[in-house]
């Protein structure tokens, strides 16, 4: 069975959703961002438990050491690679602990690591954005002449439904023009996303630290 679901930054929510699905008699088999592959279980007496960590590694050796540590503890690695960061584990032994974190600070640190990456990406790309802005790539209009972004002839003379349709149709292009092209607009959106998800991750970190 394949389920599609998007979780933005909230790891606890994702864990709970996965385990609720498991409780219906499944096992998590594979994960690609947004796509969860479950396997129907014939024997539902020992339902597995899934826990998620976030950690990146600079070498394969370090990653192997990390995975082996979890394996020693009784956690089987289901999905995740050393650069992307989200690691999915499944409890294999009855005697192994139910959690991969035994205190709230180390548990909250997952979010801290996500935040660190997002904010670094945000900062680097923001400086790129500033450089782009300084070279005059953007044609950001002032409040008075924003209408200049709309090239449709006779747009402002149209009425009612016709105007609305033409206006809405051209708005994405107009925004694209303001940013000097669709590519740079996309880049701007991506940078904003880094900032947004970074803040969200920090919020989760701060909240979980206190628990």
């Amino acid at each position, binding site marked *: 069975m394949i389920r599609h679901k998007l979780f933005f930054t909230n790891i606890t929510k994702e864990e709970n959703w996965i385990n609720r699905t498991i409780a219906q008699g499944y096992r998590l088999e594979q994960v690609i961002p947004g796509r969860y592959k479950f396997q129907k279980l014939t024997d539902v007496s020992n339902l597995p438990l899934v826990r998620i*960590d976030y*950690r990146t590694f600079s070498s394969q050796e370090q990653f*192997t*050491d*990390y995975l*082996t*540590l*979890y394996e*020693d*503890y009784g*956690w089987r690695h289901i999905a995740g690679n050393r650069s992307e960061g989200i690691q999915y584990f499944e409890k294999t032994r009855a005697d192994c*602990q139910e*959690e*991969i*974190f*035994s*205190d709230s600070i*180390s*548990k909250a*640190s*997952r979010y801290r690591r996500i935040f660190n990456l997002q904010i670094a990406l945000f900062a680097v790309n923001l400086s790129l954005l500033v450089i782009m802005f300084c070279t005059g790539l953007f044609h950001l209009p002032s409040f008075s002449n924003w209408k200049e972004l709309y090239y449709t002839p006779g747009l402002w003379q149209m009425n009612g439904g016709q105007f609305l349709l033409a206006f809405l149709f051209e708005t994405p292009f107009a925004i694209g023009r303001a940013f000097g092209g669709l590519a740079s607009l996309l880049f701007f959106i991506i940078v904003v996303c880094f900032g947004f998800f970074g803040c969200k991750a920090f919020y989760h970190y701060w909240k979980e630290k206190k628990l």
Partner: protein
Amino acid sequence: MNLSSYLPLTETTWYILIALTEPGHGYYIMQKVETLSRGTVRIAAGTMYGAIEHLLKQKFIKSIKSEDKRRKVYQITELGTEVLKLEAERLRHLVQVAENHAL
């Protein structure tokens, strides 16, 4: 370097450092700590990995050569031993104060 700024050590750190007076890998540390603490301190996998990383950064432990290709082995450093000695002294003083007050 003023090592007393590292005190007091958390219970987890105290136990991990003592466990690493003999070289060992992550899971070994967990088992040793559980024994030393009489089952009260059970460090989970993710917490353990983070604690080891933190102690490596503080240079209280170091990674030593291991024949096991899949597991890194750690041991306490001289600095770590110094910190342990200071903490032990602090704890002895606390116990002394308790005994002086019939506790």
